[in-house]
């Protein structure tokens, strides 16, 4: 006769494998001094246009590159290649989100020290990407004016997991009677203190403010580089707020 069933404690994070790779990537990015920004949004909210404009505007002064996730096509990479920045497509097949291992494979062989900014465009999806840390410093969630002001309330998890909200297609705001105050209120409800930028990649409106923000943030990896060259030690914990996605909530407070 076998014994009665018994309960044994295990305690294992289901996404541990992803988190371990993401942490290693984050450390690698930090040591190389590259600021890594990921973009999430629903399909069609303008991630690729926003990224193309960002790459084009940063390109004259910085070394930039992008990874683009897509279920099946290489169309986005082709569009982004017009910016003349190095772009690599990650075709996810049936997977509805990027995982840290896909990013790791994509940057395999890249000398990240030669980059100032690396952008990672996730698959258009406001649900699945929220669970997966990619090792990024900042996660941007995009919301186009044509989608409606209540997107943050409908997808609070992904908005809460992001660091910055970007309202895109501002050139269409009047045509669709976009209520900007309501949109900002909804963002703040699900993620108090989150930075919000409203812009149009098409007209260029609002791009300057957002680029200034990016450049300011890019100064921080430079600090890490300095710290590392001093004594080879890790940067002090107080400076690595952006490297701990578990503590993402605290990031905002420390940045404010």
């Amino acid at each position: 006769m076998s014994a009665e069933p018994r309960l044994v404690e295990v305690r294992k994070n289901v996404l541990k494998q992803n988190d371990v790779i993401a942490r290693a990537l984050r450390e690698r990015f930090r040591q190389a001094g590259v600021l890594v920004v990921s973009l999430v949004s629903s399909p069609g909210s303008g991630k690729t246009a926003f990224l193309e404009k960002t790459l084009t505007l940063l390109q004259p002064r910085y070394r930039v590159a992008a990874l683009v996730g897509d279920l099946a096509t290489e169309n986005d990479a082709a569009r982004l290649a017009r910016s003349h920045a190095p772009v690599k497509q990650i075709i996810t097949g049936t997977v509805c989100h990027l995982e840290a291992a896909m990013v790791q494979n994509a940057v395999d062989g890249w000398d990240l020290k030669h980059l100032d900014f690396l952008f990672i465009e996730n698959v258009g999806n406001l649900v699945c990407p929220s669970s997966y840390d990619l090792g990024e410093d900042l996660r941007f969630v995009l919301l186009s004016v044509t989608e409606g002001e209540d997107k943050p309330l409908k997808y609070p998890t992904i908005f809460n997991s992001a660091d910055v909200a970007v309202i895109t297609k501002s050139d269409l705001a009047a045509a669709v009677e976009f209520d900007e105050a309501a949109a900002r209120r909804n963002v703040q409800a699900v993620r108090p203190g989150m930075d919000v930028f409203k812009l149009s990649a098409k007209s260029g409106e609002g791009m300057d403010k957002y680029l200034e923000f990016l450049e300011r943030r890019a100064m921080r990896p430079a600090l890490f580089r300095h710290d590392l060259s001093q004594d080879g030690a890790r940067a002090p914990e107080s400076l690595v707020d952006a490297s701990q996605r578990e503590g993402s909530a605290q990031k905002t407070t420390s940045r404010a």
Partner: protein
Amino acid sequence: MHELSIAMSIVDMAQQEAERRGGVQVHAVHLRLGLLSGVVKEALLSSYEMACHATPLEGSQLLIEEIPVEVFCPKCGVARLVRSIQWFCCPECATPTPTVIRGKELEVVALEIQE
């Protein structure tokens, strides 16, 4: 829909643990699931059944403990449960707070096994 791949990871984990313990039979997997984990309970439960199919875990149960979202209220100085994940603020004093203490869990905490 990423619940299936997550369910498959859970089954893999439980299977490895069962093998490590000398090939014990797993009756149930206990999981803590935060409301902010990005994983939907119902979708995970049905995916789990599929993921168990033709594995030693076939017929086992996934028992989910849902973890509510707890935030730190800087004004009250204590942890509080939010009333809704559409409103990250202290339920007592309404102070907005982004500091999440609990609610992102996605972890296997225990197995019910039979030697």
